[in-house]
């Protein structure tokens, strides 16, 4: 079982490529190593990785990915970007604790959390949650619960930057 939490300065890059995920699986490397494709963000990241146990990837039957994208308006008013403020190290620690709890509760194989801090332009990605599990149902339930609890308990704030 694997938990990874990454905080990046600015927008997230594109999602993990399917062929990257496939190559990871073939090589029996801990799943979600594909986040390393987000290379340009890594150098600026305060990044925390917590590997509980390397998992055999053949156990994975479902991978669910959610991406949060900055909308072009906030409450009907056009925005240029959102500015994310994280209270560290509590934000990263809270995300890690939350991921561990969700992983255990739903019997998942891996969770990878990627979150932006600082300014993210409208149309760009600010959040990505990747969940690997044996079956679809637990991954979908875990996804919903993780996001609800993150929005309630993790000290990250966003402020609109209006046009």
């Amino acid at each position, binding site marked *: 079982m694997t938990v990874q939490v990454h905080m990046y300065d600015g927008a997230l890059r594109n999602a993990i490529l399917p062929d990257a995920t496939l190559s990871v699986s073939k090589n029996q490397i801990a799943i979600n190593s594909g986040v390393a494709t987000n290379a340009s963000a890594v150098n600026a990241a305060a990044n925390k990785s917590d590997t509980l146990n390397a998992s055999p990837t053949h156990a994975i039957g479902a991978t669910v990915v959610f991406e949060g994208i900055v909308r072009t308006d906030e409450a009907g008013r056009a925005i240029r970007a959102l500015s994310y403020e994280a*209270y560290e190290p509590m934000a990263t620690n809270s995300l890690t604790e939350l991921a561990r709890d969700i992983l255990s509760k739903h019997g998942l194989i891996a969770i990878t959390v990627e979150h932006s801090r600082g300014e993210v332009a409208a149309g760009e990605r600010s*959040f990505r949650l990747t969940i690997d599990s044996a079956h679809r149902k637990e991954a979908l339930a875990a996804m919903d619960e993780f996001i609800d609890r993150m929005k*309630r308990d993790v*000290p990250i704030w*966003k*402020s609109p930057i209006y046009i």
Partner: protein
Amino acid sequence: MTIRVLIFGSLARELSCKDIAVDVAAPATARDVNQALASKHPSKAAFFQSARLAVNHAFAKPDAPVQPTDEVALIELVGGG
């Protein structure tokens, strides 16, 4: 003694500051800090009385002790994602 409470997000913008200093009698608890915040900002008293505080980067229960050397932060109105 004086406790400095860090604030963030829309609350920090609204109050045009990054922290609020409150005076509480020693020994103090998180509940005392909440009450002092409410007294200092009566227009937001209900909000401050129930707002969650973190002490040294962990959520604090109302009866948790608070010292002037602690890092205290108000964790409300969060909105990650």
